[in-house]
């Protein structure tokens, strides 16, 4: 098993996680650690298993193999009441801000829900004060407490989702594409808000995004997924400066420049498209699209190995490519 481990005390350890949906393997042998206060970026294309990983960590779906160790306790083996107790420290912000709020609850009720569950001793007045304060903290007027989700824009709904997730000051916040459905002019506001709240509460963050430029600005380390497996794990600067895995390289090369260059027909190196919706089931899942593929790539799944100190890649040719 290829665990990316270090001697420090990790907040979260994901070890050999595997999730199957019927015959389809959604996650395979996923191992990594997340440390207190750290922001881990998770990138990959749609269908690569990013959201499945988020859900498996939070036990919103059950992995068929592997464990999720939260501060020394394996969540996959936790009794339901114990797990419920731990959830106050494990929160998530979803991609679709409107769909993740109950349309029949006022936003105040939605934000108060975690308080009702985890701080039942709080009286109504104190709870309202906390919710009002949180609304202001995320940049909304506290008078909006009695309004319903449909009265807000997408960006405002995302602020409400963030308020709900952060009101208990969780130790881990998973953000699943939190800005993907928002306009460019709103994305920066939401990312900055998350960063401010994270700093104040000391929360660790797993930030899932397909937008590499956003991930670059806020992550300490980055995980790259392809077809349900981690293919590269590295510190941010190392990953962007010297990516090892051919998929990561293609991913970075495909990002369009933020500023166009005069009459450039500089075609990014073409990455052959997957011809079928599903990747090959044996060997390296990326080999059909990879210009470096050898015979061995069709036979054996390359393990995630530490190619250079602190920089892990799952590629049979990692050492040549590094």
């Amino acid at each position: 098993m290829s665990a990316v481990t270090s001697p420090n005390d990790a907040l979260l350890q994901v070890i050999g996680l595997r999730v199957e949906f019927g015959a389809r393997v959604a996650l395979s042998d996923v191992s990594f650690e997340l440390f207190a206060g750290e922001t881990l970026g998770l990138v990959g294309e749609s269908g690569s298993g990013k959201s499945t990983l988020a859900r498996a960590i939070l036990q919103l779906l059950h992995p068929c193999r592997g464990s999720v160790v939260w501060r020394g306790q394996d969540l996959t083996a936790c009794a339901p009441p114990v797990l419920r107790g731990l959830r106050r420290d494990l929160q998530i912000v979803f991609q679709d801000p409107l769909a993740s709020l109950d349309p029949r609850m006022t936003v105040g009720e939605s934000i108060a829900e975690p308080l009702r569950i985890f701080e039942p001793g709080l009286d109504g007045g104190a709870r309202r004060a906390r919710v009002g304060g949180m609304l202001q903290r995320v940049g909304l007027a506290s008078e909006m407490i009695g309004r319903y989700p449909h009265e807000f824009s997408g960006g405002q709904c995302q602020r409400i989702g963030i308020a709900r997730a952060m009101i208990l000051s969780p130790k881990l916040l998973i953000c699943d594409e939190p800005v993907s459905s928002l306009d460019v002019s709103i994305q920066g506001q939401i990312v900055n808000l998350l960063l401010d709240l994270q700093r104040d509460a000391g929360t660790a963050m797993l930030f899932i995004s397909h937008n590499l430029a956003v991930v670059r600005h806020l992550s300490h380390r980055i995980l790259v997924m392809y077809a349900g497996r981690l293919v590269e794990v590295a510190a941010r600067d190392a990953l962007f400066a010297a990516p090892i895995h051919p998929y990561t390289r293609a991913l970075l090369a495909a990002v369009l420049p933020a500023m166009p260059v005069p009459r450039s027909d500089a075609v990014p190196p073409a990455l052959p498209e997957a011809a079928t919706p599903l990747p090959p089931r044996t060997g390296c899942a990326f080999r059909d699209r990879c210009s470096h593929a050898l015979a061995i790539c069709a036979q054996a799944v390359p393990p995630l190995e530490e190619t250079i100190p602190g920089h892990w890649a799952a590629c049979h040719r990692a050492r040549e490519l590094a």
Partner: protein
Amino acid sequence: MPPVLDITDLNVTFAQSDRPICAVRQVSLAVAARESVGIVGESGSGKTQVFMAAMGLLAGNGRAEGSVRFEGEDLLGLRRERLNRLRGAKLSMVFQDPMTSLTPHLKIGTQLAEVLVCHAGKSWHDARLAARRMLERVGVPEPERRLNQYPHELSGGLRQRVMIGMSLLCDPLLVIADEPTTALDVTVQAQVIELLKAMRREFGMAMVLISHDLAVVATLCDRILVMYAGRIVESAATLELFHHPRHPYTAELLKCIPGLSGPRLERLPTLPGQPPQPGDALEGCAFAPRCARAAARCRTERPLLEDLGAAGGEVGAGGEARQVACHFPLPP
């Protein structure tokens, strides 16, 4: 040469139980033959509705006023049969989501051939051969096998290639592409952009590309129009727009795009506030509440879209004058 598409004073309103919503306000634009024009704006800016109105595809409660001339013929008020002859033939559209814009229960070959049977009067046999050739041209591997497959059997990128091929079957004068790469992964997006570039060179059609993504528009378009709250606020040749934006909204939007190069930032640049909702009553400049340059005049008097040509001597690559709707445009 007269433009292929000439839109004048287009207004689009949607009737609602309480009050009508103005989605597009006094939009005028022209697309020359072989030209590629990008329309950028945030959600709700009206960018899609301009072209839904032009194509006669507005929702039931929508109403378009003004004129939309395609090769001299006003598309608004055109009889349905006539519109159906143009749409999909001389004037075609590529939508954002190739999964929902292909019919799920028809084979790819049938859907492609149908276009030629309906518009070009070809036999099913000939149409199928032409469909096969088109799949080859748009880079779909194993075209013969694909003809017999259903949309769900193809990856998202291949489906979008099929859509693009379909839009080109009748040699259109104009292709309108609405967020053609937004639903695709970044690596696939890069390929679809290359395909669109190649198809423009090969077919020589004019193209309108509607997108919220400035980087995508920049790589494909000669000229860019920026929309805000239902109006065009700036129009310029692509490089001019990026390097010398004149409208404060354009300038702020450009600053908000995080890049892969440049220093890493502790905080992302932001544009304060949020765009007005389509139903909001707007006095003065719609961007004034978010604009650092706004003065009292901006809150009462709406700036008109004016040529900067005379004063600034700026003319775009296509001979188009630069236009901006701002009382206090940024210096060139």
